């Protein structure tokens, strides 16, 4: 049985890194992006974190970085490690780790498509969820969903005003709306 302390000790003996306990059995590592691949391999092959739980990305637009989060799990003692790194948002590039776990390929395809992150040497088909997409990667914070919808789709005839049905009927009949309805209406 290993504890969070054992894992942190083993990691800090091998790598120069910043580790803390997030909560319960969860360890959080904040790494330079060049450390991520060797640390993940060490976690998998030496420390038994055989299960890749998740790979996520958070867009910190204000800091001009993407934060990548790799979550791995050691089933024997229910320990989780969150491996985090920040990459430049203008030229987002991360090491291709598709050979580490089979489903890493799926995660990388989604990250490439939804955030525009490049994985040099990653040759999986470009299109994953989106088809014929030539806009900014849509999960970026500066992608304006409303503007995209307005320039891409047309309004159904008779609904150009975008009133709610309740508002439309009330305006047509002249009935007075209660205050609480007006407060959250779009106009």
């Amino acid at each position, binding site marked *: 049985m290993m504890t969070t302390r054992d894992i942190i000790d083993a990691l800090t003996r091998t790598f120069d890194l910043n580790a803390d306990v*997030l*909560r*319960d*059995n*969860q360890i959080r590592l904040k790494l330079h992006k060049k450390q991520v691949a060797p640390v993940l391999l060490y976690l998998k092959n030496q420390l038994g974190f*055989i*299960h*890749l*739980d*998740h790979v*996520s*990305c*958070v*867009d910190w637009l204000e800091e001009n970085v993407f934060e990548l*989060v790799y*979550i791995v799990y050691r*089933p024997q003692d*229910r320990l*989780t490690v*969150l491996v985090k790194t920040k990459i430049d948002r203008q030229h987002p590039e991360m090491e291709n780790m598709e050979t580490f*776990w*089979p*489903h890493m*390929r*799926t995660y990388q395809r989604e990250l490439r498509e939804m955030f525009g992150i490049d994985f040099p040497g990653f040759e999986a088909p470009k*299109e*994953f*969820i*989106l*088809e014929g997409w030539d806009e900014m990667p*849509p*999960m970026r*914070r500066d*992608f304006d*969903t409303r503007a995209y919808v307005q320039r891409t789709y047309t309004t159904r005839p008779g609904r150009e005003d975008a009133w709610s049905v309740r508002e439309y009927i009330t305006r047509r009949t002249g009935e007075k709306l209660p205050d609480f309805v007006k407060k959250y209406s779009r106009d």
Partner: protein
Amino acid sequence: MTTKRNKQTTLFIGPQHPGITGNMMVKLLVEGDTVVKAETHIGYLHRAFEKLIEQRNWLQSFTLLCRFCVPEPDPMELTYARAVEAIEGREVPPRAKYIRTIVAELARIQSFLLWYGGQAGSAGLYTLGQWTVGDRNYILDLFEDLTGARIYHMYIWPGGVRRDLPKGWADKTRRVLDYLEKRLDDYNRLLFDNAVFQKRAQGVGIIPKDKALEWGVTGPPLKGVGIGNDVRKTEPYCAYGELDFDIPVYEGGDVWARALVRRDEIKQSIRIIRQALDKMPGGNYYNRIPNPMKWRLPAGEAWVKTESVRGEIGFYVVSDGTEKPRRVHLRGAAYTHGISVLEKILPGQNIADVSFILNSLGACPPEMER
């Protein structure tokens, strides 16, 4: 002379196909009746839920969350609520924990009943699905009585649940469970005693035991290779730590083993709900949150997992200290089962078994593309 290359044909199953569990497509390269290569194609129902959630406040997100998976929406609400509570440090009253457990288990049972229909139907056995979907309505009635809705409940909220158990609901639930327990024998005679199902399911769609964890397999497919990992046991949440139940485990890793696991899981869910009803504590069911329109969570992050019928689902949630989430990212069991695992186990299988194997993995397309 026909070259090997000329014998191979590309075949598309889906996105509109009765054997596909939702809007997805499996592109197959086949030689005769045998699959040589398989590729999962998704993108037919992407609704940008995760993006839209970033533009809503913490509570408004619930109207989208439950739609991440149509057959079993409640674990989505539960997992997200637990992640929000973890970031904020909000306590959940014991009564709410028990009610959440009952809701989660009822959701499991009704989803398993849908699975019976899909699994039997993909083997050409249509009667069972009509029985189980009919009986599933009794559970949807319970949900309607409790939450006001049959499918998408939006009932589990940060701090507890939205309302208390209605008068007489516990008794009605017990009666439904008694009825379902008797019906299980009928279902199982129709499915597991059927020679067609036995021959179709045994030795088909095998996941190798030594690869299962590395491939990201969880839930019934993992228990079907003989590994009994279940978040309800390994990292107990809600009231699971106070209740007595077993994790069914079978060897073989084939469709048959996964079906046996699901058969036994229903019995365990009934057992859990009965205990939760018996031990239901009194007190408050909701630790009220502040005005949701002005509710800000402290900056922080949480990774929280829950056991669904398909396997582990997890939410990675990030707060930047405002009234809206910075990031809400779902890890669904189908994300691995329906893509990388399916692509690995289909080569060598018969075309007719593709839908059958897909059903046994519990692939849920809306969970793959959120």
